[in-house]
């Protein structure tokens, strides 16, 4: 199938700003699904609220656009009811780690077979550029006009310690590796977290004088390095990208199936 066959063309062009990284994430997510050869009816996309959450409206899968931060709770319900389907949850940094922070750590802890794609643009874009738990210390936001004094979460570290069995990071610049990571995350049996560093030129870029979308992507190119590279040893400030965790662990729906069998046998 062509990439555009996965899109609800009646809603295009999308609402994202010119140069928004979320469009690149949607683009490459479709391409990963196309390479995997998954049928549209085998995918359920569940999103919460925010710029990132709009993805579920644009893609022609089974889609649910739910409450802010609660997408993983809805997705858990869908997965338990239909374990045969692939569940993909696109989230923003605020949706995943602030409003939905608890849902996020507990979905990871259960290791339920859901793919969470966290588009980290370090800010709340849709509501006007407020700082998020991923805004970097010292950066400007509409709610931090003198600079942000909060320390940012590390999504990879958070997902890893909460128990996710697949954890990866990539950026909107690294399109080809993003596609490969999405493929692995979707086929992985367990809770998969993919953090994608994504540019918000309208708010994070403008407030912090980081330039346009192209310059923000150049930043991702220059300031990230593959996991375990020698460059990281020389420059500890570089952000690592790649697959941090990929392990086989008991998956929640499979465990639940065992419980059903056990209970039925004991009747």
């Amino acid at each position, binding site marked *: 199938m062509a990439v555009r066959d996965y899109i609800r063309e009646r809603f295009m*062009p*999308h609402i994202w700003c010119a*140069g928004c990284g979320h469009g*690149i994430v949607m683009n490459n997510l479709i391409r990963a699904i196309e390479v995997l050869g998954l049928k549209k009816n085998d995918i359920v996309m569940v999103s919460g609220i925010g710029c990132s959450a709009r993805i579920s409206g644009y893609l022609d899968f089974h889609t649910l656009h739910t409450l802010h931060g609660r997408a993983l709770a809805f997705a858990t319900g869908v997965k338990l009811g239909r374990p045969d389907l692939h569940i993909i949850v696109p989230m923003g940094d605020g949706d995943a780690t602030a409003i939905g922070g608890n849902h996020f750590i507990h979905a990871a802890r259960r290791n339920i077979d859901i793919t969470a794609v966290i588009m980290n643009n370090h800010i709340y874009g849709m509501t006007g550029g407020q700082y998020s738990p991923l805004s970097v210390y010292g950066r400007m936001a509409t709610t931090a006009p003198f600079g942000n004094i909060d320390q940012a979460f590390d999504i990879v570290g958070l997902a890893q310690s909460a128990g996710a069995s697949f954890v990866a990071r990539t950026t909107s610049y690294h399109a080809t590796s993003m596609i490969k990571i999405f493929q692995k995350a979707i086929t992985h049996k367990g809770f998969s977290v993919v953090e994608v560093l994504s540019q918000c030129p309208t708010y994070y870029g403008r407030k912090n004088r980081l330039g*346009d979308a192209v310059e923000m992507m150049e930043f991702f190119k220059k300031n990230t390095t593959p996991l375990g590279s020698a460059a990281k040893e020389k420059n500890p400030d570089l952000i690592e990208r790649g697959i941090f965790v990929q392990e086989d662990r008991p998956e929640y729906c499979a465990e639940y199936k065992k419980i059903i069998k056990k209970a039925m046998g004991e009747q």
Partner: protein
Amino acid sequence: MKSKSKKDQGKDRSHIEIRRDWCKGCGICVAFCPKKVLALDENEKAIIERPDECDQCGLCELRCPDIAIEITTL
């Protein structure tokens, strides 16, 4: 048959389609094209300025936030 040079391999074998109604003119495709095939026109929409230089790497297609670029191999 003489094999084609690397430069000629891309010639006449691909077609780049840009949907102008989807393109928002961010310039990502223009900036990151290794062969400088693309440009923005006076309406800030991506256009194919040097089609003969395209070697079908596909990076414009993958990095387009508007999903406005489609490369078809002929």
